[in-house]
C-alpha cells in the first residue's frame, strides 16, 4: 500500500463540501431516531453501507474524467497499488464513521432507553467493518469500469432493482424474487444484514461469502485497471 495515495485519497474525498455534507447527514441520521424510539432495530439497522457509497463513489472514475489518472500512471507506482491504496483509504474512513455511528446510537439506546443487549455488539461491529470493505470494493470495481460518477449510477440502479425484486416477491409471495433481490443487494453491499433482525449471532457462511465477494471485486477491479488504456479523450475539462 502507498501511504501517500492513502492520505491523498482521504483529503480528496473530504475536500468536496457536498460529499462532506451528505456524509454528515447520513452519519447523524439514526441519532434522532434512537432518541425517540427505544427499539434497537429502528436505529441500529440503518442502511450503513450508504456511508461507504458516499465516500467511495467515483473513487477511480473521477480520476479518469479529470485527467488525474494519466499523470499518476506516469509515476513509479503500480496500478494495483494505487487502486488498493484508494480502496483502503475509503474503507478505513467508512468503517470508522460507521462504527462511530453505531457507538453513538448504542450509547443513546442504553442511557436513554436501556434497550440494547451488549452481547450483540461484536457481530454488529464486524458487520459494519465487513460491509464498509465490501461496498467500497464493489464501488472500486464499478468505478474502474466507467468514468466520472457512473459507478454511483450503476450501484443505485442495482440497489433499486434489488428492492423492486423483493417487493415483487413479497406481494406475490414468491420466494424466488425475494431471494434474487436479497442476493443482488448482497452483491452491492456485501456483509450488510449479517447481524440484522432481532440481533442474532453472526452467520459465519454469510461472513465468508461477503469476504469472497469483496476479494473478487478487488481482484477484478485491479485486473480491469491494469488492462485499461488511459486517454485524454475521456477527460472532461
Amino acid at each position, binding site marked *: 500500500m*502507498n501511504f501517500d*495515495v492513502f492520505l491523498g485519497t482521504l483529503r480528496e474525498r473530504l475536500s468536496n463540501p457536498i460529499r462532506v455534507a451528505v456524509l454528515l447527514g447520513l452519519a447523524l441520521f439514526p441519532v434522532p431516531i434512537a432518541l425517540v424510539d427505544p427499539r434497537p432495530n429502528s436505529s441500529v439497522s440503518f442502511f450503513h453501507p450508504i456511508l461507504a457509497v458516499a465516500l467511495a463513489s467515483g473513487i477511480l472514475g473521477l480520476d479518469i474524467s479529470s*485527467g*488525474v489518472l494519466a*499523470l499518476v*500512471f*506516469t509515476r513509479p507506482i503500480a496500478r494495483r497499488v494505487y487502486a488498493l491504496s484508494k480502496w483502503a483509504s475509503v474503507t478505513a474512513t467508512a468503517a470508522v464513521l460507521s462504527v462511530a455511528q453505531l457507538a453513538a446510537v448504542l450509547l443513546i439506546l442504553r442511557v436513554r432507553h436501556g434497550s440494547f443487549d451488549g452481547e450483540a455488539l461484536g457481530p454488529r461491529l464486524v458487520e459494519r467493518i465487513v460491509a464498509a470493505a465490501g461496498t467500497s470494493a464493489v464501488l472500486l470495481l464499478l468505478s474502474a469500469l466507467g468514468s466520472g460518477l457512473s459507478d454511483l449510477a450503476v450501484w443505485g440502479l442495482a440497489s433499486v432493482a434489488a428492492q423492486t425484486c423483493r417487493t415483487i416477491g413479497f406481494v406475490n409471495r414468491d420466494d424466488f424474487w425475494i431471494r434474487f433481490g436479497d442476493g443482488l443487494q448482497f452483491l452491492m453491499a456485501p456483509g450488510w444484514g449479517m447481524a440484522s433482525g432481532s440481533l442474532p449471532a453472526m452467520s459465519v457462511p454469510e461472513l465468508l461469502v461477503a469476504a469472497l465477494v469483496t476479494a473478487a471485486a478487488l481482484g477484478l477491479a485491479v485486473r480491469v485497471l491494469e488492462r485499461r*488504456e488511459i486517454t485524454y479523450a475521456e477527460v472532461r*475539462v
Partner: protein
Amino acid sequence: MLRYTDSVPAPAPAITVAGLTKHYTGKPVPALRDVSFEVESGVVLGLVGPNGAGKTTLLGCLLGLLFPDEGRIQILGGGPGTPEVNRLVGYVPERLSFDRWMTGQAFVAYHHALAGRPRATRQADVAGTFDRVELEPSARRRRIATYSRGMLQRLALAQALVGKPRLLFLDEPTSGVDPHGVLLVRRLLAGLKADGVTILFNSHQLDQVERVSDRVLFLREGQLADVPVLGADAPRTLALRWLADGGASLARQLAEAAAACDAEILEEATATARVRVPSDAAAARLVRALVAGGVPIVEAAPVEARLESLFHANGAPAGGRAA
C-alpha cells in the same frame, strides 16, 4: 545551482521503438503503423505532423498509458509504464487538468512523493522547482482551481520536473502561454538539455520545435514520414531582392549561380526571387556567386522556418499547422 536530474548516466539510446502498430477499436485505419525510431540520450526530439497523424497515440504508448498491438518499445532500458522506468520519466500533458482542490504546493509535493523522492528533501525540492518555473510564492499556496492558464502551465512543468526525470515528455508545453512563458520553457529546456535530460517535445508551434529540437519526427497517417536533422545541413527557402535595373542578364546570372549551388528557383520576378537551397553552405555560396557576378543584392533572407518547409515537403497542406 539546483540541477533537475540526478547525475546517474542514462543508458543509450533513451528510447527505442521498433515496428510499433496500434489500432483503436472501431477505427478501420490504424493510429500507428510500423513506426520505428531511436532517440539517443540527451537529445531533444521534436514531434510534428498533421491532425490525426498519431502523435498523441505515440506519446500514450511511450508513457505506457496505451498498449500497442504490435512492436516493441524500450524506455531507458525498460518497458514503458513500469515503475522502474516511470521513476526516471516526467510528463507535461496537453490538457492541464489537475487536482483542482489542492494548492499548487500540495500538488507538487504529492507528485514528489509519488515519484519516490525522499521525504527529507521534499520541501527544498518543491520550493526549488517552483523557483525554476517562476511561479510566484503567493500563487503556490492558492488552490489550483484559481489558477490561470499560464500558471497551470508552470505547475505542469513543476510537477514534471520535481521527480528529477532523465526523460521528459512534453505535450504542447507552450500552448496558450504568453511570450514570457514561452521564453521560460525555452530556457528550461536548454538547462535540462545541458543536464543530459532526453526530451520529447510535441508542439503545434513549428518555430518552437525548430528552436529547441535536435531532431524531428514527422508523423503522417500513423507512419513515420521523415526524421530530418535540424541544423546547417537542412534545406531552406531564401528570398532574394536586388536593384531592379539589371534586366535579363541578372536573371541569367541567377539561374547559373543557382545551378552551380544545387539550388532551385521557385519563383522569379523583376527584382525578387525565391530559391530553395539544400543547406546553409549552399545559401552562402549562392549569395557569394551572385555578388561576385555583379548582381546588386540588397536582401537575402529565409522566407519561412526550416521546419515549416520540411513540414510542407512532407505532405502537409500549405498554410496548415502541425497538430
